[in-house]
C-alpha cells in the first residue's frame, strides 16, 4: 500500500493527517475516550486523500486567500442573482449551453475548478470532454459568460503553487 502512494512525502502526509484530526476534534469534541476513533478516522481520511490528490498538491497560501476573498462574495452574489430571477414577475432567464476550453489538466484540479464554478453566478458545468472542452449551462446567455469563466479560472490557478498548468 505504501508503494502505491509513495509519491507523497511523509511530511506532507503528516500535515494532512493533523488537519483531518483537527477537523474531527472540532466536529466531535475533544473527549479523551473518543480520541482513538478520531485517530483511525484521520488516518483513513489521509489515505483516501492521497489516493484522490496524488501529485504533491501544494496550495499557495496567499493565492488561496486571494481566491477566498474573490470566491465568497461571488458565491453570495450567485444566490442573490438566482433569488432576483425567482422573485421577478416573469423569470428573467435565457438559459442555454456555452462551451469553454479549459487549460487545467483532467483529474482533481479540473473537477475542483468545476465544483467551484457551479457556485458562481449563473453557471453550472455539466460535462467535460477528453480534450478539455467544458459544457456549461448558463442561466442567462446575455451576460459575458466566457470572460467571467476565464477570470474565474485565472483566480483558481493562482491557488495551485505551480501557478497552474498553462498550455
Amino acid at each position: 500500500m505504501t508503494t502505491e502512494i509513495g509519491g507523497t512525502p511523509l511530511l506532507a502526509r503528516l500535515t494532512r493527517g493533523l488537519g483531518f484530526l483537527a477537523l474531527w476534534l472540532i466536529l466531535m469534541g475533544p473527549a479523551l475516550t473518543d480520541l482513538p476513533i478520531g485517530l483511525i478516522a484521520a488516518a483513513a481520511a489521509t489515505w483516501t486523500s492521497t489516493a484522490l490528490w496524488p501529485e504533491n498538491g501544494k496550495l499557495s497560501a496567499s493565492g488561496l486567500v486571494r481566491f477566498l476573498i474573490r470566491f465568497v462574495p461571488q458565491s453570495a452574489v450567485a444566490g442573490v442573482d438566482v433569488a432576483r430571477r425567482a422573485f421577478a414577475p416573469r423569470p428573467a432567464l435565457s438559459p442555454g449551453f456555452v462551451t469553454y476550453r479549459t487549460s487545467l489538466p483532467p483529474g482533481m484540479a479540473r473537477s475542483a475548478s468545476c465544483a467551484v464554478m457551479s457556485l458562481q453566478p449563473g453557471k453550472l458545468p455539466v460535462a467535460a470532454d477528453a480534450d478539455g472542452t467544458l459544457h456549461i449551462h448558463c442561466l442567462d446567455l446575455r451576460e459575458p459568460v466566457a470572460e467571467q469563466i476565464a477570470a474565474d479560472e485565472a483566480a483558481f490557478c493562482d491557488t495551485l503553487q505551480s501557478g497552474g498548468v498553462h498550455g
Partner: protein
Amino acid sequence: MTSLANAFTLVAVGCGALLFLAGTLGLLRFPDTLSRLHALSKADNLGLGLIVLGLLPQAESFAGGLKLVCVWLLAQISAATASQLIAGVLYRRKSRP
C-alpha cells in the same frame, strides 16, 4: 452589545429564510431541469450560509461556533459536488440520441 448581536442574528436568519423561499420559487417557476438545479444549489446554499452566520453570535462556546462554520463549509463542498453529479447524469442522458 447583546442587542446588537441579536439584531444581526435576526437580519441574517430572516435573509436566510427569504433565500429558501427564493429557492423554492425557482424550483416552481424555472422552465427546465438544469435551471431548477441552479436555483436549488445556489439559493439554498446561501440561505444555509446566512443562517449559520446568524446563529454564530448565539453560539454558547467558541468550539460550538467553529463547529457551525465547519457544517457550513461541508455543506458548500457537498452541494457543489452533488449539483455537478446530478447535472452530469442529466447531460449524459440528454446527449444520447
